[in-house]
């Protein structure tokens, strides 16, 4: 439609200047086209590059350690004797922290989004939204020390036997960290639900809470799920916070009071150590990295599937 109007406008110009502009305009639009295409290509090329480099280096690892052993082994000790390459303790550590974070961030994040979109007067929303954005902008290293120096000692008052490095405080603080992500994407989805649907429910005698829980949230469900998936991918991939606060002890456990190690924290630990490049030990980084990549990929695919399955259209 717009384009149509523009063409009509062009046609109305006197022929002279238009003919003169023609060549340059054509070149300019070509140039812009290729420039934009190049930018789009950059991110695709980066993704491909990462996958290829992960795959090729991981292949070096899997020539010496079977995939089966890697995926099912329950002891992770690549630089100890005897060596052992079962990745499950790292996966367990990652999932443990992620589940704790999700248990915090989902209810609080959704409740925040409901408050902002259904309850808060404009004045209050104008204060809370920027605060959440500040929370989202704090460097993760700060969260790490927050967990280590504030939350862990507090938790030790409740669980005296707990180590200072533990999955619980890392998970709780990670939950706080991803709340803004859950709440802001969920809130956008809720605000997009048409006013007419809310009015329809109010007109049937629904209370504010009933409108929120039975109309707004279901109608915004696909956006809310997208928020969860993004936040969880972020939690799985988060590195600094868990490296600082969760410990460096790969352990096959689901006890949140223990010191554990996540996949990301292991990668940091090994890359900072003195393991020679190209060795089997060093290549574990890429095997673990590849698995991490696949986990987030599966999560995203799952997210897309759930979104399509549950979407309420309006």
């Amino acid at each position: 439609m717009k384009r149509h109007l523009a063409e009509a406008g062009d046609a109305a110009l006197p022929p002279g200047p238009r003919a003169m502009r023609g060549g340059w305009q054509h070149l300019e639009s070509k140039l812009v086209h290729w420039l934009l295409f190049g930018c789009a290509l950059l991110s695709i090329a980066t993704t491909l590059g990462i996958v290829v480099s992960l795959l090729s280096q991981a292949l070096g690892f899997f020539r010496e350690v079977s995939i089966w052993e890697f995926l099912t082994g329950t002891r992770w000790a690549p630089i100890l004797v005897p060596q052992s390459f079962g990745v499950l303790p790292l996966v367990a550590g990652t999932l443990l922290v992620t589940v704790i974070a999700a248990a915090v961030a989902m209810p609080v994040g959704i409740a925040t989004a409901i408050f902002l979109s259904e309850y808060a007067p404009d004045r209050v929303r104008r204060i809370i939204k920027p605060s959440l954005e500040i929370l989202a902008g704090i460097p993760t290293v700060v969260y790490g020390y927050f967990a280590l120096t504030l939350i862990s000692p507090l938790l030790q008052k409740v669980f005296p036997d707990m180590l200072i490095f533990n999955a619980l405080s890392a998970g709780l603080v990670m939950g706080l960290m991803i709340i803004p992500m859950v709440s802001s994407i969920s809130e956008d989805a809720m605000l997009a639900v048409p006013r007419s649907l809310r009015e329809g429910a109010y007109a049937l005698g629904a209370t504010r809470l009933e409108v929120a829980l039975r109309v707004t949230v279901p109608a915004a469900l696909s956006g809310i799920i997208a928020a969860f998936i993004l936040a969880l991918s972020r939690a799985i991939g988060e590195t600094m916070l868990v490296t600082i606060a969760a410990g460096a002890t790969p352990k096959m456990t689901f006890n949140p009071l223990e010191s554990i190690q996540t996949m990301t924290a292991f990668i940091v630990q090994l890359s900072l150590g003195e393991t020679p490049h190209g060795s089997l030990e060093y290549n574990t980084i890429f095997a673990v990295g590849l698995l991490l990549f696949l986990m987030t990929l599966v999560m995203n695919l799952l997210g897309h599937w759930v979104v399509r399955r549950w979407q309420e259209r309006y």
Partner: protein
Amino acid sequence: MPGSSIIEVKGLNMWYGNFQALRNISLTIPRHQVTAVIGPSGCGKSTFLRCFNRMNDLIPGARVAGQVLFDGQDIYAPGVDPTEIRSRVGMVFQKPNPFPKSIFDNVAFGLRINGYQGNLAEAVESSLRRAALWDEVKDLLHKSALALSGGQQQRLCIARAIAIEPAVILMDEPCSALDPVATLKIEDLMRSLAEDYTIIIVTHNMQQAARVSDTTAFMTMEEDRAGIVVEYGPTSELFANPKDKRTEDYITGRFG
């Protein structure tokens, strides 16, 4: 008791912030009849209608003065719960607004939130029958309501409203998004619903008001003064010999 009144509006004024949208309205709505509100765009018809179920409460800055007595009880008295009022005064909107849920869940919505104890499926069926929609949807109850046509969606919204057995149904230009056939269906429906319910309808369409209503209120605005009820009385009289010059101008098409 047909012939008696169900709602009595006394000295109603209403403001959006500083803008006064209704001016000193007093009238009574007869029970089990169709009352139409007509008038030019922007004169305050929707605003007036939304005073009957306190929908204006949802608009920040909206303020009401005066009384709306529903069966003798002032719905704006302190301590009155607006959700309670809305479960007795239902509403159908200009644009059909079914929830993005199944047909069944749409009709059951009001029953569920109001803690209905009886047989849900029976209540849904009887509401759909009364809204003249049952035969068209009885095999699609668990399909999305959004798959229905506009006219069907509007009848679904009517079924949704009558499911909780309100005493009054407010309709704000319920046919303005529909074609003539769907419009006639809704008009027939309104006539038959008037046996059990009191209906107040806002319409732009004077023929529609003449066809469906027993009583008509004509509203207008002057310069920047909106929300004036000029004339109120039996529809046949108001259309045949309007008492006020402004009413006459409007219904003969010389204004608006």
